[in-house]
Each structure stands twice: as C-alpha cells, then as structure tokens.
C-alpha cells in the first residue's frame, strides 16, 4: 500500500515536472546551495536529496552545491561568488548562527532570495526557514531516557560542538525536560564534537569515574550515542540496562534501535532539503508555483502545511524511531 502510494506520487510528480519543463522550455533557474560542510552523513543525505528534487532532475533548476568546509569565512566568500554570478536564489545551511547573518544581508541587498535550511541563522532578511526544531528533539530524547529510568537516577550528556546551533538548541531541550525532574541528576555534561570515537573514549572514562552510577545516556546525536554504547559494551555491561538516546536517525543508529540498544528520532534530511527548494522556488517564480516535493503530502497528517508557500518558517516534524518501525528507515 505504502509502495503504491509512493509510486503514484512519484509518477504524478514526474509527469507534473515534465509538463512544466515543456511549458517553460526556455526558462531555467540557477540555484546555489551553500552548506556548512559535506563531511558528515547527515549533510550528505541532505545534499543527495536536494539533487533528487523533481525540478533539478528535469533540468529546470541548475543546482550548484557549495561545500563551506565548516568555516564561516569560506561560506561568506561563497556568497560573494554567487552574488557576482547573479544566481536566482540561495539555500543556506550556515555553520554559525551569527556569522551567517552578514552573508544573508549581502544577498538581500542584491535582491537574491535566501531560504535557510537545517541550521538557523540570526537574520530577519531570510525569505524563509525550512528545518526541524532542535529544541523539540532535545526534549524528546531526554524525555525518553528519563522515562526509561523511571523518573529518577543519574544521567550523562554527550554534547555537540559548543556554540553550534544544534548543540545550543538540543541542550536547551534537554534542560527543559531535566528541570521537570528533580530526582534526576546530571553527573557529567561534556562535548564529544558529534564524534563516535571521541564519545567512546569519554564514556569509557566516565564509566570508570562513576562506576555503577550512570543510569542513562543522552547523546545529542546518534554518532555519540553509538560511541557510548560501544564503551558500555567494552566495560562488560549490557547496553540494554543503560537507556541511551540519540538524534538524527542515521543508518547505524536505526540498526541499533532495531536491536533494542538505543532510541532515536529521525531528522528528515530529504524533507528539509526538498522543502527549502520548493519554498525558494515559490519566492522566485511567484504565486503560480506549486510545490513539487512529496514531503508536503507525507507530513500533512503531522500538521505541516504548505499554505501559499510564503510562511517565514516551516518546521519539519521529528519521527520517533522504535523497534517496530525501524525497518522502514533502513537504507534499501
């Protein structure tokens, strides 16, 4: 059933896509996507999904993806280049919440619409923002871990790189929940820089420092949660006895969820990428533009609505991954 629905939508979309391509044979659009860096699995998925957008596939949109190499200055320079080349629109995934604002201002001054995606930037010049609210993810994972340990006990938190918007917001979500539970104590809270190897060493050391006292593990992303699980195993403990949560829904984490070792929430890279391109095209083409990506249909029930495509922000919902639904998130 799911497959049929998917096939029907795909066919409908590709027909719609080719129809519009015929109608506007002359008109193509140059779109630049400036992303903070292409070295992580999540941004790879994001970039690949963007290339799969129906209008990119049929050639209506000429897409250039620029790798910001995790550096704010590189991203600023890439904006200068795109402005000189007079692109029609920009999708922006900034490395830094503040430093990105200047780049957005420059593009706005050149009358180029900029739609943010995935990570936030502190600018009111942004045409729109399509992403997932990291505060909610932080709340969801903390809630899951605390419920699993019965509302009392000791937890540790593995943080992202301090100062990145995802780290700031996920920490806020963690703390919103922790504030409600007076009997839960945070033993340690330290960055492992989204890295599995770093989290592995850190967790080994914590398990020594607080031997037998750690009841739950909150990882601000899946990679670190997976590293923590390996540390627990190496210590000779059963990961199932120490509830662990991550965020993002990367393939390895989905497998671990399926095995009952952790929980995670899916951040839909594809929906964020394709949704931001739809919103950007709406602002370039005008009211006649109809969204092409299937996410608007998929998330309708979850409360996401296209409206007329001019909202200032679209929040893509998080999907909890459980043992029962894990299979559908595994790569085919």
């Amino acid at each position, binding site marked *: 059933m799911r497959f049929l629905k998917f096939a029907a939508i795909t066919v409908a979309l590709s027909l719609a896509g080719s129809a519009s391509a015929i109608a506007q044979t002359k008109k193509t659009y140059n779109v630049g996507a400036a992303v903070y860096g*292409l*070295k*992580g*699995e999540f941004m*790879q998925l994001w970039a690949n999904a963007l290339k799969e957008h129906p209008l990119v596939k049929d050639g209506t949109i000429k897409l250039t993806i620029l790798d910001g190499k995790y550096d704010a200055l590189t991203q600023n320079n890439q904006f200068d280049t795109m402005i000189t080349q007079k692109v029609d629109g920009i999708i922006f995934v900034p490395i830094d919440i503040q430093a990105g604002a200047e780049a957005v201002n420059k593009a706005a001054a050149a009358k180029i619409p900029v739609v943010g995606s995935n990570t936030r930037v502190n600018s009111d010049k942004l045409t729109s923002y399509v992403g997932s609210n990291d505060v909610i993810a932080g709340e969801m994972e903390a809630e899951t871990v605390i419920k699993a340990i019965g509302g009392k006990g000791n937890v540790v938190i593995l943080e992202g790189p301090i100062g990145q918007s995802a780290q700031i917001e996920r920490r806020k979500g963690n703390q919103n929940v922790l504030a409600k539970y007076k009997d839960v104590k945070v033993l*340690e809270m*330290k*960055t492992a820089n989204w890295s*599995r*190897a770093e989290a*592995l*060493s*850190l967790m*080994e*050391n*914590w398990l*020594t*420092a607080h*031997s037998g006292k750690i009841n739950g593990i909150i990882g601000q992303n899946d990679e670190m949660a*997976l*590293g923590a699980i*390996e540390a627990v*195993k*190496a*210590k000779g403990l059963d990961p199932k006895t120490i509830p662990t949560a991550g965020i993002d829904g*990367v*393939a*390895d984490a989905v*497998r671990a969820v399926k095995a009952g070792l952790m929980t995670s929430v899916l951040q839909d890279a594809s929906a964020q990428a394709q949704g931001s391109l739809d919103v950007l095209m709406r602002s370039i083409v005008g009211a006649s533009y109809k969204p092409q990506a299937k996410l608007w249909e998929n998330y309708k029930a979850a409360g996401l609505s296209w409206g007329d495509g001019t909202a200032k922000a679209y929040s893509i919902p998080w999907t909890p991954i459980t043992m029962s639904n894990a299979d559908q998130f595994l790569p085919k």
Partner: protein
Amino acid sequence: MKSENTLSTSDRRSNLRHTLSEYGIVIAFVFLCICLSFANENFMTWGNWVNVLRQTSINGILAIGMTYVILTKGIDLSVGSLLAISGIVAGSLVTGETAGSVWIAIPAGLCVGVMLGALNGLVVARLAVAPFVVTLGMLSIARGLTFIYNDGMPIANLSLEFRYLGQGMVGAIPVPVIVLALVFAVFWFILNRTTFGRYVYAVGGNEKSAKTSGIRTRLVVFSVYALSGLLAALAGLILAARTTSALPQAGVAYELDAIAAVVIGGTSLNGGVGTLTGTLIGALIIGVINNGLDLMGVSSYYQQVIKGAIIVAAVLIDVSRKSRN
C-alpha cells in the same frame, strides 16, 4: 693536568645531565600518574589502565611510525588521512551480507597505507621535495579519495570477525593494546638492533656523511615513509573496528597528536636523536592527561591548554639539551 681535570668533571656532569634528560620523561610520567592517583581514586585501577592503554593504542601506533620519519629529519602530516582511507577500504570489504574474509580486508587496507606512504617516500627521496610539502599534499589527496571512495558516507555494519581487531580481548588485555605492544617490539628491534635502524639515525644525523660512508640514504628515506603509511593503515583498521564503522572523516588532526607524542618523548625535530621508548611514554602522557582530566570532570578546553603547554615544555628541554652539547 688541570685542564684534564676540568674536562672530566664537566664530562661527569654532562653524563648526569644526559641520564636526567634520558629518564626525565619517565620521571615526568610517573610524577603525573602519582598526582592523578591522588586527584581521583579511580585512576589507579586496573579497569582504568585498560581504558588508558586502549585509548593510547591508536596514537601510539601512529607515533611509532612518526618517530622513524622524524629521526630522518622528515615529517609525515598525512597519517590521519592514510588512517581514514585504509579503514574505509578495508571496511568496504567486510560490511553487510557480502562481508568477505578479514584475511583479505586487513591486507588490502594495509596495502593502501603502504602504497600511499611509499608514494610520499618516493617524492621526498627521489625528487627531493620538502617532506612537509609532500605529506601536506598527501593529507589532502588521501582525504579527498576517502570521500570519493564511498561518496562521503560511512561504512557501517562491519563483520564481527573484523571488529575483533578493535573490540576483542585476550584474557584481560584488549587486542589493540596487544597490537601496540607487538608493533613497539618489532619497531624497537629494527631501530636498535639492525643495520637499517642505524642507517635511520645516520641519515637524520648527517645525511651527507651518511651518503659518503656508503649508506643508500634515498632507500632509507623512502622506507620510513612506507613504514609510517603501514602503521597509519594499521591504526585505521583498529579505529574502524573499535567504532564498528569506517568513517571518512576519521582521524582528522591525528597527525598532530602523533607528532606531539614523538616530541614529548624527546625526539628532536632536527633528526638523528630520539628513542622509541620516549615516544611510547609521550603517547602515554597524552593518553593519561586526557583520561585523568575526564575522570576529574575538567572541561576539554583546559585539556587542550595543558597538552599544548606540555609539548612546548618538552621542546624547551630538548633545545636546552642541544645548546649544552
């Protein structure tokens, strides 16, 4: 008569200094461990030392190869990238349902490391390009190839057989620690008991006179980079096995920790002077600092400051030793 006397006194003094500088690093290490065991009651436990040794194994293996290179007055900045590409090549052969034998995957991964390391060596030895530049280039090339190889995606789901290399235990001792011990033993033997080892020191001490005395200096230089590549690959396999997945971004900036271990261990960046034992203790010092500060709950920001201060202090000792000689 008088002058002879003064000479012998200063000789004795320099002998004492020599002993101190030789064992200074060991004394510093023991002192550090004593301080940390007072600061945290869990530090001096067997379980914690298993952690420290396991966490040190990867940097230790890299640093052993780096010692050879630095002894010839060279440097190898590419080890972090060689580690990543070897891990991902080996990982791709032992993933999923089609997982092949580790007896193919491990040699394949090691082969990639040796070949790229040998390429470094070829350009440094044959074309006489500065090692810093050659290996800086390789750092970027190998990292790029790693991302190309699997389109930037990690390779997960590595076979249990392969994971043994990183997660297995022989009795109470983790496999990576045994690998480190074996590598240390073999490379210590080569450096201290074979002609090739003497040549490594000779090339770094004075390449011209080494050449005039009939040593094939180019071959020696070429070999140390190939060996460094081999050990980087070995470290890459262990890292992938430990984290159960081969990540293309693994090992970024690991070359810096490896160089730090070598320098803390008393090996001179000017070549010709240094020991593998010093390097091993240098790597242990870094491991113990990271571990101890984690145990005490010190922020990772301070960890970086302390590590940096120790590196500079180690080089200062090295410089003052040189000026006395």
